[in-house]
């Protein structure tokens, strides 16, 4: 305990503040989740009784989320995008980690700052700048060669690239931090014991990085899953879940099915977050 201030009244107040803060943190999530079980057509008070219809019912008007094809398709796209983004960004994050921890090249500091930059560029701007570039290229090619490069048009690929552009910074930082803790002599020890360079990488270095790679992958997946700002500009006809939900909310009308999705996501993300924390925990040494 690092607070010699043992004044009990002060500590009580402090604890109360901390408790209030966590209530503040949880409140909207609880609200968003709880109304999923309200047997009403509107996500609002009064409480009409408990129901699971918003998850499992298969007929309108109370179409449950597991029967709502559009939501499920959004979920599916989110999933695909998340997997692609996290795989790609873990890969590049890993090469970046090696580059910046092991590599020695001119202007390394400058490049390192470049690597961090995407994290602080507003997502909206990342989205539009990539949209603009891709469209310009596509239009240019179309005008000149009369060739339609469909992959440069809003769609899954651009969404993946847009999210990848800043999620890679996150994965790079996570994996770099781990690689910095790597005791280089471990590689020398493996070489000394007779392993080839490839064997060293496969049996010592990568296994050491694995927890960070898994954690980075999960973080990347979750950030991708919840991303809105960047995706908004890059989405084509395959909308991921956040966009689907937003459209539903803003253009159709929200029913508690959105709460059901929220509940589902809160629980799912919570579990994933727990896993990522668990894999990263080092054994006590």
């Amino acid at each position, binding site marked *: 305990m690092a607070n010699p201030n043992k004044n009990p009244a002060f500590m009580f107040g402090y604890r109360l503040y901390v408790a209030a803060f966590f209530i503040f943190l949880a409140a909207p999530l609880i609200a*968003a989740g709880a109304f999923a079980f309200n047997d009403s057509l509107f996500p609002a008070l009064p409480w009409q009784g408990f129901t699971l219809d918003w998850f499992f019912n298969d007929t309108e008007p109370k179409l449950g989320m597991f029967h709502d094809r559009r939501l499920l398709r959004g979920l599916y796209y989110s999933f695909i995008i998340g997997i692609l983004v996290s795989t790609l960004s873990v890969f590049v994050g890993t090469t970046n980690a090696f*580059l910046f921890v092991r590599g020695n*090249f001119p202007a390394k500091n400058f490049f390192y700052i470049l690597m961090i930059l995407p994290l602080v560029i507003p997502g909206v701007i990342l989205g539009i700048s990539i949209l603009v570039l891709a469209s310009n290229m596509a239009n240019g090619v179309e005008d000149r060669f009369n060739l339609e490069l469909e992959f440069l048009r809003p769609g899954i690929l651009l969404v993946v690239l847009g999210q990848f552009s800043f999620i890679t910074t996150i994965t790079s930082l996570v994996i770099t931090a781990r690689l910095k803790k790597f005791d280089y002599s471990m590689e020398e020890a493996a070489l000394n014991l007779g392993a080839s360079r490839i064997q060293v990488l496969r049996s010592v270095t990568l296994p050491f990085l694995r927890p960070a790679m898994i954690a980075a992958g999960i973080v990347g997946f*979750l950030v991708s899953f919840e991303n809105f*700002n960047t995706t908004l500009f890059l989405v084509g006809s395959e909308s991921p879940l956040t966009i689907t939900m937003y459209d539903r909310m803003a253009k159709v009308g929200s029913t508690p099915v959105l709460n059901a999705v929220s509940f589902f996501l809160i629980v799912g993300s919570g579990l994933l977050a727990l896993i990522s924390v668990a894999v990263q925990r080092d054994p006590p040494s």
Partner: protein
Amino acid sequence: MQSDIKRLSLILLFAPFALWILLLIILPHLGMVVLSLREKVAPRVYEFGFGNYIDFINEPIYWNTLLRTGSMSILVTILALLIGFPIAYYIAKIAGRRSRGALFLLCLIPLWVSDLIRAFGWILLLRETGVFSSFLQWSGMVSEPIEFLYNDVTVVMGLVYTVILFMIVPLVSTLDGMDDAMIEAGYNLGGNGYTVLRRIIVPYAMPGIVSGCIVVFMMTAGSYLTPILLGGKNSSWFTEQIYDQFITRFNWESGAAFGFLLLAFTSFVVWLGLKLSGQTLANTVAKS
């Protein structure tokens, strides 16, 4: 031969980095700047010029919105720091070993749920017929329903809510690295609670504070959903302005100019903050 291999592997490692930064960050931003320098003179006819920027300067609505976004983002950053610091301190320094991990996790959970759901939750709580208002009426504290939504205070609160985790996480990690003995030494040498906070804890946590502030400020200035969904009739956010240029006005040229202006403006604020606090990007954001 040894050095050839080294060079080759350096190139192989550099390639993905270079492709990423060049194709997804640098070129798009250059493209955006180039686009922003195109003036529309007639349908499908464009000319090079600073017209979009001149429009921005000539139209108080635009720069007012940018200033408003900037100042509210600074306010949100300060509030997040003030609210988050005691929490981070509690987690890093006061909570017991086991509850520390749990509290930290609790802090993170909202992070993994999208803005949309969080804003949705707030709407359910705060609307005139929402949970709060109903509760206040039920408890007899008020007789009329109260609308908590659609005002700047709610927007600020919602933004603080959305970003505070990005303040707490770097703070916890810097405070965690601080030897408890340092605080005790501060008291032992005669400091009171306030001196220890001001002269020891805060200076020590400075990299974390700055890092948290940068990320929070940038996220706030760049946020879209929260101000849109919780904001009232008077609240406009610069990202919304950009969105409108792109989406409802089909004016990509001025949208690109706005995007560039937002980036330049926020970067300037961050640069100023770094200068004032004597920190650098590399030893703050990169560390957390």
